[in-house]
């Protein structure tokens, strides 16, 4: 049974990972972060990306889509940003956020690993 720290430590070992965060998407608070640095403030990224998730959830409601978001991929020139929504019984609006270096990352692998981390965290 993983806690948030081990989950994040595992996330940062994903090939090409720059930083990762576990975020409460209602409040925009990062419950935990790993990596990042001066040029990449993960708490700012966490707060900002809650708007991305909220906006997509809202759009799906407007479209009448009865479905759930598994993950959201944002592709930059040099990075991938991966948002994985957590589905556990208690994860009332949590998501895992992972920033990857595009040159070093294997996107398919990273998605798979992030899914596994989510399952292990099991909140």
């Amino acid at each position, binding site marked *: *049974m*993983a*806690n*948030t*720290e081990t*989950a994040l430590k595992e996330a940062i070992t994903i090939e090409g990972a720059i930083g990762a965060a*576990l975020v*409460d998407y*209602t*409040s*925009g*608070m990062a*419950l935990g972060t790993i990596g990042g640095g001066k040029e990449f403030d993960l708490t700012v990224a966490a*707060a900002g990306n809650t708007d991305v998730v909220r906006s997509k*959830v*809202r759009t799906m*409601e407007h479209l009448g889509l009865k479905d759930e978001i598994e993950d959201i991929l944002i592709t930059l020139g040099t990075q991938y940003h991966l948002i994985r929504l957590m589905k*556990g*019984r*208690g*994860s*009332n609006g*949590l998501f895992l956020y992972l920033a990857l270096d595009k040159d070093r990352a294997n996107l398919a692998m990273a998605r798979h690993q992030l899914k596994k981390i989510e399952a292990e*965290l*099991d*909140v």
Partner: protein
Amino acid sequence: MTAAPTAVSPMLLRLAEERATGVLVRDHGALYLADGQVVHAESPAAPGIEVLLTAGGRLAPEGWQEAVTRAGARREVARFLVDSGQVADGEMEICHLGALHDAAFFALAPGSGPTRFRYGVAHWIGAVRPVPAVAVAREARRRRGLLDSVWPHSEVDTAPLRCRPSGHGATATPRQRTLLELADGVRTPSAIARAVGRPAFNTLLEVRRMAAAGLVETPSDPAVPDPAPLPAWVADFAVDPDIALLRRLRDALEASL
């Protein structure tokens, strides 16, 4: 109305520097420190961790009661719940952090009366994951800024939630509808948060969003009552708890069970 840009509580930062252990009591809540780090927080305006844990049936109320009875005296309630397999490790951490920051937001509300500190007091929930005091203060400030960026009228935070007649196109999200269903003209956002078992801040944020969208009324009268202050006895507890007396009480209670 808006948060002061200055430090939320200079005393908190000073206590963090001197690595103090004890409880910081302000008008709208209390922060528990261990070695200068925040280990727990409570506020009458925020649902306690037991509400968040038992909401939605994640933990049976009896399970919580049992944990308090068996591990409360040795201040290991959280540990007990995890070790007995009732709450997963990660779940406990996330729930505890949620409760901590939620209560801290109210406890650190700007200008909320005098601040007192009792050295040596520990909370019975026990060690989960300590948070640096600066991080708690920063998060409380961020939250205040976020609320004001959504709808800069803090009156809606403490007034009873009242729906506005619809007809102007705005629709509530499912999450917001849950809150609106409980808006009976008496319940405040804090009371609604407790009823649905969600953090009070999350509810405030939704309420401000709904106020901005015209779905709920923003009271024109700013003279609304403050959220319930902490009962006076909280600050009056003895510096030296009478351990012997507490032990005798516990033994007597256990014997009578």
